């Protein structure tokens, strides 16, 4: 195993230019801001956050679908910018949320799964057939579905086809964007089991984009929490679930409704103010909704504090800010 991380995201920004309407100028929307992330080989790195937090934009930047506006991404020690598109695709493959729309409805299952081999010019006809049959077994699809069209399959089978298509060229990294959100719970369990088995069998690295914290706890090893384009907290899964620190992470964990009829509904204490991503709040982006906000939050953007592999952006845990604040309140 190389010492280089499988994927190393260094201070990337993704900025879109958004029209504000007829005759109005365009404004930058900073969908991903100053993001640092590392995933080592064999790890499952989860990125969680609400809609609009930039998690899918970050996934698209990692997938090189929409390269970052600034910053650099390294794959196994090599800058992604320097890699050719095909060379990159050989190593990194996506699995999308909705297997209904990510599969070509007019292409058979077999042709869909074999397509990457043709694109990359791998093997001859016979070898491709062999690879196809092997991958079908691996993802648990019966061989008879080879000639079926996507609409003839169930949702779970379709997601297996999407996974098989991603795996047939033996990539190292799989970027899964909400891989089970469109599925029923009994099918979600099958797909999560499959992803786990494939990771250990093939030594894959996963980046898992999801809003489902129960899924994160179950299969991920590290987790990064995003809010309005920034990673506000990042830690190992054990750490984050045992001792979440950022008020937003705490609210997220509390809102994961476990099936326990004795617990009732959580009171998050968050305000109903929703920030506009084009015009994000000053200081800490979360301060208008935060239940522990204090003076510096609206003025100063929190810096990144790292201790024991637990990284976070919150003034409450910044000793300098807190001592300055306490001294100041003492004066009054």
């Amino acid at each position, binding site marked *: 195993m190389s010492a280089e991380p499988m994927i190393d995201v260094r201070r990337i920004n993704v900025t879109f230019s958004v029209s504000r309407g007829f005759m109005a100028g365009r404004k930058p929307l900073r969908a991903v801001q100053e993001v640092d992330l590392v995933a080592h080989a064999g790890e499952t790195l989860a990125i969680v956050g609400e809609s609009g937090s930039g998690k899918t934009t970050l996934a698209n930047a990692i997938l090189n679908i929409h390269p970052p506006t600034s910053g650099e991404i390294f794959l196994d020690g090599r800058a992604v910018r320097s890699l050719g598109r095909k060379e990159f695709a050989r190593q990194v493959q996506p699995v999308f949320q909705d297997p209904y729309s990510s599969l070509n409805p007019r292409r058979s299952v077999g042709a869909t799964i074999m397509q990457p081999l043709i694109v990359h010019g791998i093997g001859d006809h016979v070898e491709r057939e062999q690879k196809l049959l092997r991958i079908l077994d691996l993802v648990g699809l019966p061989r008879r579905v080879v000639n079926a069209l996507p609409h003839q399959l169930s949702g779970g089978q379709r997601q297996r086809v999407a996974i098989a298509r991603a795996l047939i060229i033996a990539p190292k990294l799989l970027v899964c964007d909400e891989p089970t959100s469109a599925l029923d*719970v009994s099918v979600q*369990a099958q797909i999560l089991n499959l992803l786990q088995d494939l990771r250990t069998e093939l030594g894959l690295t996963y980046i898992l984009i999801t809003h489902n914290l129960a*899924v994160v706890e*179950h299969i991920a090893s590290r987790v990064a929490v995003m809010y309005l384009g920034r990673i506000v907290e990042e830690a190992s899964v054990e750490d984050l679930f045992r001792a979440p620190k950022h008020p937003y992470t705490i609210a997220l964990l509390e809102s994961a409704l476990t099936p*326990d*009829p004795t*617990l009732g509904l959580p009171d998050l204490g968050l305000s*109903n103010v929703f920030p506009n991503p084009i015009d994000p709040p000053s200081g800490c982006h979360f301060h208008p909704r935060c239940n522990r906000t204090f003076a510096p939050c609206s003025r100063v953007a929190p810096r990144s504090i790292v201790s024991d592999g637990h990284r976070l952006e919150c003034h409450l845990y910044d000793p300098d800010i807190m001592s300055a604040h306490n001294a100041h309140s003492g004066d009054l």
Partner: protein
Amino acid sequence: MTAPLLKVDDLHVRIGARDRQVHAVRGISFEIARGETLSIVGESGCGKSMTSLAVMGLLPRTARRESHGISIDGARIDGLSDRAMSDLRGLKLAMIFQEPMTALNPVYTIGNQLEEAYRRHNPAAARGDARARAVYLLEKVGITAASERLNQYPHQLSGGLRQRVMIAMALMCGPDLIIADEPTTALDVTIQAQILRLLRDLQTEFNLSILLITHDLGIVARTADKVAVMYAGEFVETGTAREVFNAPAHPYTRGLLAAIPVPGKTERGGKLAAIPGTVPSLTDHLEGCSFFGRCSRAVPDCALGHVALTEPSAGRAWRCRRPYLEEAAHQGGALS
């Protein structure tokens, strides 16, 4: 307890023409008392949404409803004309749909849409009354600057705000029953928790009965008084939330609960218990148990005849010949 607010007796819904008919809802009966929440939980295609539309009288044209009676406050509503049903909708029973973006009309302001139902049911009321009621309810559902919001269009609001508007709209005429079909599925988790709390607070304040349709067992456990687990058009298990979650008797209920990872309970990285197989086609006549073929406890007998509902006490029932009884009794005992 007094007479139930909503009583549904042996409801069937059939969709499509004679030759390729889908029997989507296969004889379900339930009651909801005033101020109570009944949650129907099941996976996609089990018939839960058809059940809610059948009660509202909003089934698609190709679907037919049959029953031995649907009544609200003791008055039958299943025989009513479209016109008479439309007089009741909004007034006695109202619906909150899943996707507030598509359920709100994009070309009318929030105010127009809130006032419309009120004025439909109170033709004599002045415009100002409707507006005052709209402002009152928008404030109730936690929307600030309510009177300015009335002039906004749905696209100007976030998803959470839109769903609050939907809830305010459902309450405009003070209905007794709210049918909420996946009310928070399209929302972020923190917003979901806030909306569910809001619904619960409004329920207490206005003594509402709620029929909550969802696929999310977490929501059911945290909000419902009574639970009905639906599979292939039938209720396979019913009971109070504690009965169903602490001592599930039906193998399908057990399977659903085992399939979801629960932080702190499920072993991290361990195998989840997936339910093998797929839901049976509802076009055919189903012989035997509808869960036969996916059930780990099935015996050959399960494939024969119709499995009747076993009802050991009022409201507690399961449709299974080999239920998890000893374990159920044991866990139930430990709980009480």
